[in-house]
C-alpha cells in the first residue's frame, strides 16, 4: 500500500513538473567541503550535508546535531591582482571610477560576479531520521558588459524531514533514503534578472537602490537516493527536486520595506516548478575513523543523458566532478579536485564541536570543459555535536 502511494506521488510530481511554466533550479550552497573537492560529495554526503546531497547519507553509524552551519561564498577569481583590488576597496583608496571599472572587469572576465550564503541547522539521528531547516541565497551578476548586465537573485528556505535505512546483504551494504521538503522561494525573474549596471550606477551615485521586482511562493519537493558498497568502495545515485508545481506571485522591495514579511505572497498565480537533478557517483573511503583517512569521489551530473550520448567520453568529462580528501589525525582535512576539469583546493579543521573549512574553486558554466569558468572562494563554519 505504501509503495503504491509513493509511486502515485512520484507520478503526480513528474506530471506537475512537466507542465510547469517557470523552471527554477535548486539554490545549492557552494559549501567549502564540496567545492574543495571539485563539486563532488553530493552523492556520498553524510549527516547535515545530506540535506543538500543524498538523503541516503542520513543513515550513518553515529548521530549529529548541527546547531548552526554557515557558509559564505563569493564568485571572484582569487588572483593576486583581484585580491590587491579588493584590499584597495576595503581600505578606501580605490576611486568610484576604479570600482566601477573593476566590477565590470570581474563580471566579464570571471563569467559572473556575485556572492551567496547558506545557514541552517538540523538533527540526523542514529536510526536514520533527519530533521533540518536551511536557508540558501545566491546572487550573480553576469553579462558581456556592465551595459547589458543582469543580476539574478535566488533565495530558498527549506524545512526538511528525511529518513534513510541501511541494509546489509552479505558483504554488500546499502543505504537508501528519501526526504520531503516544504520550501519558500524568493527570486528575481530567472531569465531577465535585474539591470545590474543601472543598480550599480544608482548605488554609487545616490547610495540607493531602485525598486526591485520579485517573485515568491511556497512549494513541496522530494529527494531520494541510495548508496551501495562493498567494503570501502561505494556506488551511489541521487535524484533531487521532484516537486509539485507551485504558484509564485509578484511583489517589490518597496512592499517588503512597508509591510515586512507580510508582503511575501502565498497565493500567486504564475505556475513554477523546481528542475529535477540527477547525480551518480563512485567513491572510495579508506581507513575510516583512523588517523589517516583518505577518500576519493567521482560524480556525474545527469547520468541518464549519457546513455543517449553520441560521444560518451566527451559528455562524461563535461559533467564530471572528481575530488579527494585526506583526513589527518581525525581533525585536519585537505582537499583537492577537478570540477569539469577546473582545479579546486580546500582545507578544513574539525575540532570537538567546531568545524572550519575553506576552498577555492572554479565551476564550468559553458558547454565544454574550459569554456566558461567561474571562479570563487568559499568559507564554512559549523557548530556541530557528533559527526
Amino acid at each position, binding site marked *: 500500500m505504501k509503495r503504491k502511494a509513493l509511486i502515485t506521488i512520484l507520478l503526480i510530481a513528474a506530471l506537475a513538473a512537466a507542465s510547469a511554466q517557470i523552471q527554477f533550479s535548486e539554490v545549492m550552497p557552494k559549501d567549502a567541503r564540496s567545492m574543495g573537492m571539485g563539486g563532488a560529495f553530493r552523492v556520498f554526503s553524510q549527516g547535515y550535508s545530506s540535506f543538500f546531497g543524498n538523503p541516503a547519507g542520513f543513515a550513518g553509524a553515529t548521530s549529529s546535531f548541527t546547531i548552526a552551519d554557515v557558509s559564505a561564498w563569493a564568485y571572484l*577569481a582569487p588572483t593576486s591582482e583581484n585580491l590587491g583590488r579588493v584590499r584597495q576597496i576595503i581600505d578606501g583608496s580605490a576611486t568610484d571610477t576604479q570600482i566601477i571599472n573593476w566590477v*565590470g572587469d570581474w563580471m566579464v572576465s570571471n563569467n559572473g560576479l556575485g556572492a551567496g550564503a547558506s545557514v541552517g541547522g538540523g538533527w540526523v539521528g542514529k536510526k536514520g531520521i533527519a530533521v533540518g531547516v536551511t536557508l540558501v541565497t545566491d546572487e550573480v551578476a553576469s553579462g558581456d558588459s556592465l551595459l547589458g548586465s543582469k543580476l539574478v537573485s535566488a533565495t530558498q528556505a527549506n524545512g526538511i524531514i528525511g529518513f534513510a535505512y541501511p541494509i546489509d546483504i552479505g558483504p554488500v551494504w546499502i543505504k537508501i533514503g528519501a526526504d520531503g521538503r516544504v520550501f519558500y522561494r524568493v527570486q528575481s525573474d530567472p531569465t531577465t534578472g535585474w539591470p545590474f549596471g543601472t543598480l550599480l550606477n544608482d548605488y554609487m551615485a545616490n547610495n540607493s537602490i531602485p525598486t526591485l521586482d520579485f517573485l515568491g511562493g511556497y512549494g513541496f519537493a522530494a529527494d531520494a537516493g541510495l548508496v551501495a558498497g562493498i567494503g570501502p568502495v561505494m556506488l551511489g545515485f541521487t535524484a533531487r527536486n521532484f516537486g509539485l508545481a507551485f504558484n509564485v506571485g509578484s511583489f517589490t522591495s518597496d512592499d517588503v520595506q512597508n509591510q515586512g514579511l507580510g508582503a511575501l505572497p502565498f497565493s500567486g498565480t504564475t505556475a513554477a516548478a523546481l528542475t529535477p537533478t540527477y547525480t551518480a557517483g563512485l567513491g572510495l573511503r579508506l581507513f575510516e575513523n583512523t588517523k589517516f583517512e583518505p577518500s576519493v569521489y567521482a560524480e556525474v551530473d545527469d547520468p541518464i543523458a549519457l546513455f543517449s550520448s553520441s560521444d560518451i567520453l566527451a559528455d562524461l568529462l563535461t559533467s564530471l566532478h572528481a575530488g579527494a580528501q585526506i583526513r589527518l*589525525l581525525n581533525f585536519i582535512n585537505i582537499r583537492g579536485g577537478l570540477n569539469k576539469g*577546473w582545479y579546486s583546493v580546500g582545507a578544513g579543521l574539525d575540532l570537538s564541536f567546531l568545524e572550519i573549512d575553506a576552498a577555492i574553486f572554479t565551476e564550468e558554466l559553458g558547454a*565544454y*570543459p574550459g569554456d566558461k569558468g567561474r571562479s570563487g572562494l568559499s568559507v564554512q563554519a559549523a557548530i556541530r555535536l557528533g559527526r
Partner: protein
Amino acid sequence: MRRRYGAYAALLAIFILLFSGCDALIGNVFKEANWGQPSAEKLKSADTAALLEESGVSSGSVSSTFIDTVLSDDDTKTTVMAKLEATATDPDSTPEEVQQSQTLLISIKLADYGADDIVTNITESAGSVIEQLSNQMDEGGNVDFAAIIDVLLPDTNNLADIINNLGTMTSDYDNLAANISTNGSTLDPDVVASAAQTALLAEIVSDATPNTSNYDTVGEAMAALVEDIKNSEDPSSIDMNQYIQTSPDMSALTAEGTTLYTLFNEAGMGDVLAQLSGIGS
C-alpha cells in the same frame, strides 16, 4: 598537544597560501589535454539542430570553444556556415531555429573577421571609458584620448580590415531584428543584449563615410585616426573631418522600427538606446 599546534600551524600556512593569490589554480586540465572538446570533423557532419545545441546558443551563450573549433578548419567553417545560412533562410524553419542560426552565424563571422576581441574589449571597457570621459570633462581638464584609445583598442593590427568587415555585417543584424520583430524573441536576453551591442558598432561603421580625398574606406580612415591620436602630442587638435566625411546619424539609426531599436528594446536596454539617440543630434 604540541603535535596539534604543529598541525594548526601547517593548516594556517595552507590557508595563507590559498588566499594570497591563486593565479596558477585557475586552469582547466581537460581543455589543456583536449579532452571533452568538440571536434571539427564531428561538427562538419552534424545537422543544424546538433550544431545549435552544441554551440550553447540555446542555453544563453555561444561557446567560444565551439566557435574556435568551427574556425580551425576551412571545410568545417564553410559547411557549418552553409547549414546555418540554409536554416536561417528556410521558410519552413521555426522562429527559434532561424534566430538561433542567425545568432550563431553572427558569432562565427565576428570571430572569423577578428572583430570579436575588439567588440569584447569595447563592450567590457565602455562603462569605464564613459566614466573617465565624464570625470575629465567635469574637472575641466583635457580629455586623454590616447589613454582611452589604449583601453578600447590595445591591439590595432588589421584594424582597418576588421572595421570594414564589421560594417558588412549590418544585413545579418537586420535579418535577426526583422525576425524578432515579426515573431518575438526566442533567444535568451543575454544573447540579444550581446547582439544589440555588436549591432551598434556595425551600424555606426556602416553609416559613416570616409573623407574620400584621403581614404577609400571607413576602416582605413578609422585606423589612421586611431594611430594619429595615439601618436599625437595634442590629440584635441586633430581634425575629424580629415578622416570622416559624415558621422553616423544616431537619431536615424535608433528610430522606432530600426534594427537597433528592436534589439536594444528586446534586450531590456531601451533606456540606453534613448541616450544614444541624442549623441550627435
